């Protein structure tokens, strides 16, 4: 069946499509009918009863008609009640995950997404097998965000200090954009990622080598992978350009003046800036960096420091 974009709705890629799209299209036709009815009536009446002579009076002072009034009270009521049950049935189906789902932890923070798999793999895009229900346990590290996949017709707010669940089942492979829809600050519109739906075998193979990202790589290469996967790229550039945070190019060994006096950038300073970012903030930057305490393992901290050293 054709999964491409229609005039009103984006591409179809999940089981929710057959819940949302029929309801949307049914309502679309109801509203076209009522809108057409009213606009035709208005134009016909206006044209037919236009005042041609300045003192032309209304041809009839009909001011009420009970059957007409009751009809356009009862009929809309019945229609909307039908719409309610249609909506509620679909809604409960969209909220209750079937048994046997695969769980992924989502961490949202100001302006980047992080995905953690039970096997320990971490990634900045969501990779899922096709035709298997996936449940996301989402939490935020600072403010409200919202995880929205237009192609899957599903969305759920991500609330700090709680786990909010969202489930879906992709019906075809491909890469589908994910957007944050709850306003969360400066780069709210850049807080984008993607859902990559793969065949089950390709997924297993990806999961295997993703579970231990550092395997077979030098610490510096592992640090480079972490720069991408941990969302450091959202705020720190590696080409010297000033972003939300200072650039990492030529950072190591430089003398930086910070909120706590001037400091020589060495391993201890970088480690401290990762675990207590607000301690010594480089002047000219906002203390918005969240802590990575309890998020980065020691091996990862060392890897990132090695990677920064290589950036001359």
């Amino acid at each position, binding site marked *: 069946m054709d999964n491409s974009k229609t005039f009103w709705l984006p591409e179809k890629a999940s089981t929710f499509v057959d819940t949302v799209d029929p309801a949307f299209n049914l309502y679309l036709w109801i509203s076209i009918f009522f809108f057409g009815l009213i606009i035709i009536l208005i134009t016909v009446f206006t044209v037919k009863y236009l005042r041609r002579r300045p003192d032309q009076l209304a041809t009839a002072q009909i001011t009420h008609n009970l059957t007409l009034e009751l009809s356009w009270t009862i009929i809309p009521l019945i229609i909307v009640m039908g719409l309610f049950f249609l909506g509620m049935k679909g809604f409960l189906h969209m909220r209750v995950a079937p048994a*046997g789902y695969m769980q992924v932890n989502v961490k949202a923070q100001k302006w980047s997404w992080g995905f953690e798999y039970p096997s320990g793999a971490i990634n900045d895009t969501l990779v899922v097998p096709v035709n298997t229900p996936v449940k996301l346990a989402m939490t935020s590290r*600072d403010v409200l965000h919202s995880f929205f996949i237009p192609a899957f017709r599903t969305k759920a707010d991500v609330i700090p200090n*709680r786990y909010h669940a969202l489930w879906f089942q992709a019906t075809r492979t491909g890469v589908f954009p994910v957007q944050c829809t709850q306003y969360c600050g400066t780069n709210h519109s850049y807080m984008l990622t993607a859902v990559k739906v793969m065949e089950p075998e390709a997924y297993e193979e990806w999961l295997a080598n993703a579970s231990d990202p550092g395997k077979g790589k030098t610490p510096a290469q592992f640090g480079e992978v972490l720069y991408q996967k941990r969302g450091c790229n959202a705020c720190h550039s590696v080409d010297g350009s000033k972003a939300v945070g200072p650039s990492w190019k030529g950072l190591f060994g430089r003398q930086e003046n910070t909120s706590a006096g001037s400091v020589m950038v060495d391993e201890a300073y970088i480690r401290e800036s990762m675990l207590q970012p607000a301690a010594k903030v480089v002047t000219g930057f906002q203390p918005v960096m969240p802590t990575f305490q309890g998020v980065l393992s020691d091996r990862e901290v060392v890897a990132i420091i090695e990677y920064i050293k290589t950036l001359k």
Partner: protein
Amino acid sequence: MSNHEYPGHAIPKSTIVGSYFTLVFLTAIMVGLSRLNVERLGIDWIDLHAIKTCLIMGIALVMGIIVSMFLMGLRYESKLLNLTIFLSNFVFLLIFVLFTWADTSFRGEVDPSFNQKINYTSPVKEEAAGEHGAASHEGAPAQTAPASAGPAQAVQEAAPADVKTVPAAEAAAPAKKDAAPAATKPSAPSAPAAAKPAAPAAAKPAAPAKEAAPAH
């Protein structure tokens, strides 16, 4: 009722003084009732504390009616307008509290892990750390910790019940899932189960499963 050439109505002095003494008497009963230590009575087949609360609020309601009807003269109004204004207040407030309760006390019916609060800091200093489940401090979120004098006692929460750092092999096969979501639970507003005491998970001495983050 009010004779028409004089505005308003003269509330008789006896009513005012009488309602005053009734109010003082009711206050005395209310305070006395609240001092009654019901645990001592040892009756456990009925929740005496809930009854005591209902009685106290009932007396408060009666006092409210006395103040509004007699002291504020709603009883003597010729037109019902002021009374309807007064009562519609409570209709809107009732709607407000009932629907907010419909949300807060029925959260997590479909997905129980939604009710677990994690990583929040509370300025209330804790003497015995152990008393509250493993309030391990090393996972304390240090993001703009409030500059409260008392050391922020971080309540490190268990990850949602169904995410345990189990060996990778088992990850796909969802072995034991105590938070197995019920089949489409009919959420028709049938009589809600006893209002689940939504005590925070902190009180539940859950076995401290590590955050799903990779091993430290």
